[in-house]
């Protein structure tokens, strides 16, 4: 006998049982199946001990099955568990922070501490993850509202303040902090404040993400085991350079992916 899980419930079944036979017995009206993160595998695949099967009718959530099991069916379970147990800080919810935050919520980070003093402006929408009807609202509140629509599996603690060395301890519970400010002076100040007050934290900062330069020039520089900087290091906002969703989004995705890898212990 082997133990496999189907939609979060454990079953003891004969070894050499194929997925097709297993599902015809326990969930015959499925039309999508995901086994160990693989969508629609060969139904003649013989189940192995510990396999995780998620099956459902397209576009529906079956009764008695947790949304969590379905939502994270495409990620290895132990990775999701680790992400759920982690807390990440995001300083600034603009073009970088709103994208970093959304990626981390979708990936299943359990808790975010987000900080931004500003409100949503029309000129933010070209790259920041807000909607036209949110113009004039605090970004922290708009972000929380949007993330609630995506996932109930991330708790978000929000602060509508300017971060300084006097209040940087709001990030005390975070393993990693994403520096997502726009202003270079604030970026430097935040990194100094974290290094001074919270020296055991990892900072994933950004510099050089403006303009329409090559996507390949957005890279990670590892300054030390506690400081990483994403960007090309030189493309700044100036006359006719600007900020565009595609390039800022690449930087934010690199920042958030690095954070995920650090949480999972994949980054050495």
């Amino acid at each position, binding site marked *: 006998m082997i133990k496999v899980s189907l939609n979060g419930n454990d079953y003891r079944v004969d070894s050499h049982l194929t997925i097709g036979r297993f599902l015809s017995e326990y969930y015959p009206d499925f039309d999508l199946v995901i086994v160990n993160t693989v969508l629609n595998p060969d139904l003649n695949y013989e189940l192995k001990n510990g396999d995780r099967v998620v099956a459902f009718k397209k576009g529906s959530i079956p009764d008695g099955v947790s949304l969590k099991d379905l939502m994270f069916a495409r990620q290895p379970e132990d990775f999701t568990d680790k992400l759920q147990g982690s807390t990440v800080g995001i300083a600034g919810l603009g073009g970088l922070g709103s994208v970093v935050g959304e990626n981390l919520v979708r990936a299943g980070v359990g808790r975010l501490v987000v900080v931004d003093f500003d409100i949503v402006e029309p000129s933010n929408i070209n790259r920041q993850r807000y909607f036209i009807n949110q113009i004039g609202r605090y970004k922290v509140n708009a972000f929380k509202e949007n993330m609630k629509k995506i996932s109930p599996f991330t708790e978000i603690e929000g602060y509508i303040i300017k971060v300084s060395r006097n209040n940087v301890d709001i990030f005390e519970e975070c393993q990693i902090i994403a520096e997502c400010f*726009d202003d*270079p002076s604030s970026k*430097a100040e935040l990194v*100094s404040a974290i*290094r001074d007050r919270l020296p055991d934290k990892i900072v994933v*900062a950004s510099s050089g993400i403006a303009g329409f330069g090559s996507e390949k020039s957005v890279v990670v520089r590892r*300054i030390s085991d506690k400081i990483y900087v994403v960007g090309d290091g030189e493309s700044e906002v100036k006359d006719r350079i600007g900020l565009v969703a595609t390039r800022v989004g690449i930087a934010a995705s690199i920042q958030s992916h690095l954070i995920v890898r650090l949480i999972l212990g994949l980054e050495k």
Partner: protein
Amino acid sequence: MMLIINGEKREFKQKIKSISQLLKALKVKSDFVAVELNGRVVFREDFKSTEVKEGDNLEIVSFVGGG
């Protein structure tokens, strides 16, 4: 004069006395930089008054705007 900056040895022809002078030599804007000297954070208001000595270990992260 030799300093270790972000893990790399750097030789300077001129004598550098303070963090401010070092940042000038490196052509880095002092408002946009985070500095650690021998593992201790130096805030920007102390750049002028903080001395740098032969063999000191510095971490210097400079930033440009955009986000």
